[in-house]
């Protein structure tokens, strides 16, 4: 459906994207992930035909974006990073204009009604866009992308700046839209990608660093089965006991986190799962385990590992390209943001 091959874009000396290739099949929802400034928007702008690439090509349904722009543009609905809205128009005027622009004539009213219902903007249909809240503006932007019933939806950070409730609404909407369409969704918020997408593509400093299902990625990258454990009891004795459990390679003390108990990080011998042995041993000794978690990488860890460059797992030969553009500094920031968004989501889920 979408074929991106060896795509590069240079602005003078700066390489915005560097030989990015991937394919998206019909009906897939893929998450396009990367820290700010990684080249997500540039890639999307090229796929939609807004700007050209320095090298490489993009094909939609077999049509080259540069050679057959009319064919490809008809198939794509695009929501850029900043929704392209005219503040002095009403929602109705705006959507009518988009219909004109995309040559939608047949059953226009019915199509518009359906879209408005889908993205829930019917109640602001006659209001000026400038007076709408950010969430509504975003939804009008999505409505715009849906006009003409395109097979491909490209959404550049559709949930930025929305409150948690709106974020969940937009996510659900995207999931629903993805049932019948191919969707590329960019974000630097991991929980979002995890919640919506089947497949994840990670780019960093313009290079593709990972491509696969979220679980696959984390499984590939978590090479060990480290276990973090919290046990009630005197630190030194518990430490000694833990060290002697069968399959344990080493134990590291993590200190006191809760009154009367201590945390330990246990590294098992290669490819052994020591959780049961730990449980049995501690139960025997009557040192209750208060918590135990295996250190499987979350998508967030994968992301940080890949984009900060301390990963050598062989998915690619990652080297930060642009000096002075420190993605190590950027990535943790987006990581915390992701964590915040995640906890926010949990909060409103409970509510």
């Amino acid at each position: 459906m979408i074929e991106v091959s060896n795509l590069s874009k240079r602005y003078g000396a700066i390489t915005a994207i560097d030989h990015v290739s991937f394919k998206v099949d019909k009906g897939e929802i893929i998450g396009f992930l990367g820290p700010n400034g990684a080249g997500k928007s540039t890639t999307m702008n090229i796929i939609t035909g807004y700007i050209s690439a320095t090298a490489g090509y993009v094909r939609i349904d077999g049509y080259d974006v540069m050679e057959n722009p009319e064919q490809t543009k008809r198939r794509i609905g695009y929501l850029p990073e900043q929704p392209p809205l005219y503040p002095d128009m009403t929602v109705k005027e705006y959507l009518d204009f988009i219909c004109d622009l995309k040559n939608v004539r047949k059953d226009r009213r019915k199509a518009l009604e359906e879209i408005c219902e889908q993205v829930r903007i019917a109640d602001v249909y006659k209001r000026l866009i400038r007076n709408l809240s950010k969430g509504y503006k975003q939804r009008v932007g999505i409505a715009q992308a849906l006009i003409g019933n395109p097979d491909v939806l490209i959404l550049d950070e559709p949930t930025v700046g929305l409150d948690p409730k709106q974020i969940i609404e937009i996510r659900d909407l995207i999931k629903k839209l993805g049932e019948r369409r191919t969707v590329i969704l960019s974000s630097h918020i991991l929980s979002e990608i995890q919640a919506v997408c089947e497949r994840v593509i990670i780019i960093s400093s313009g290079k593709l660093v990972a491509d696969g299902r979220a679980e696959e990625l984390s499984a590939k990258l978590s090479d060990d089965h480290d276990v973090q454990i919290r046990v009630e009891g005197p630190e030194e004795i518990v430490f000694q006991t833990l060290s002697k459990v069968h399959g344990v390679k080493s134990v590291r003390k993590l200190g006191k986190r809760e009154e009367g108990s201590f945390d330990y990080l246990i590294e098992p011998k290669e490819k052994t799962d020591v959780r049961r042995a730990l449980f049995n041993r501690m139960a025997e000794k009557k040192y209750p385990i208060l918590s135990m978690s295996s250190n499987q990488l979350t998508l967030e860890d994968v992301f940080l590992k890949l984009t900060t460059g301390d990963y050598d797992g062989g998915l690619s030969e990652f080297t930060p390209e642009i000096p002075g553009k420190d993605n190590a500094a950027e990535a943790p920031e987006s990581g915390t943001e992701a964590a915040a968004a995640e906890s926010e989501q949990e909060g409103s889920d409970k509510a």
Partner: protein
Amino acid sequence: MTAVYRKELLIYFTSPIVYAYLLVFYFFSGLGFNAICIAQQTNNLTGAIDYMFTISMFILPVLTMRLFGEERKNKTDILLYTSPAGTFGIVAGKLLAAATVYGVASAIFVVYAFVIGLFTAVQWAVFFCGLLGFLLMGVSLIAIGGFISVLTENQIVAAVITFAISLLLSLMDYIASMVSGIAKTVLEYLSYNTHFTPFQTGQIGLSHIIFFLSVTGLFAFFTARSIDHRRFSA
């Protein structure tokens, strides 16, 4: 093209700038009509049209200053250029919309002609010839102004540069008088007065029509090329 044209008109007529433009245009044309036609008791409107030629140089940049720059600033240009409409269609739609507003303003002369018609016979042929020259001149200035607004996102800068160019084009006669030889010929040819004045005496010169249409076409082409260059230069 029609989609962009209709959108531009909608935006024009929901923005105060166009009403200010029309107000100023109607005010000064009324003043000119009064001072030139009524006071001198002539049935020839071309004097008033000639006078508005100068005023238009000052106020036309207001119509074109936001034409392309604002879309780029607000990032709404992405919408246009990722739609099936081609670059040239978009440029044509925008210039036509500006030309329509200009036409609405110019239509006031027809009202004045009817006012004259209440008292005496109007020289309709001369009048429409003058109006044609006025419209062609304005449309070519709109194309120049549109091109300038592609070059800068800043509306004030666009307006000032367009104004400076209009002024230069109308002063070209004066500059031509300072030089001689081939430079003089070229500058005289480029002068808007050279091509505008014959219309006001009731002459429809094909070469003058072609001059204004060429300027319009050339700058519309520059505009489209400049947009494509920005998008597609690697």
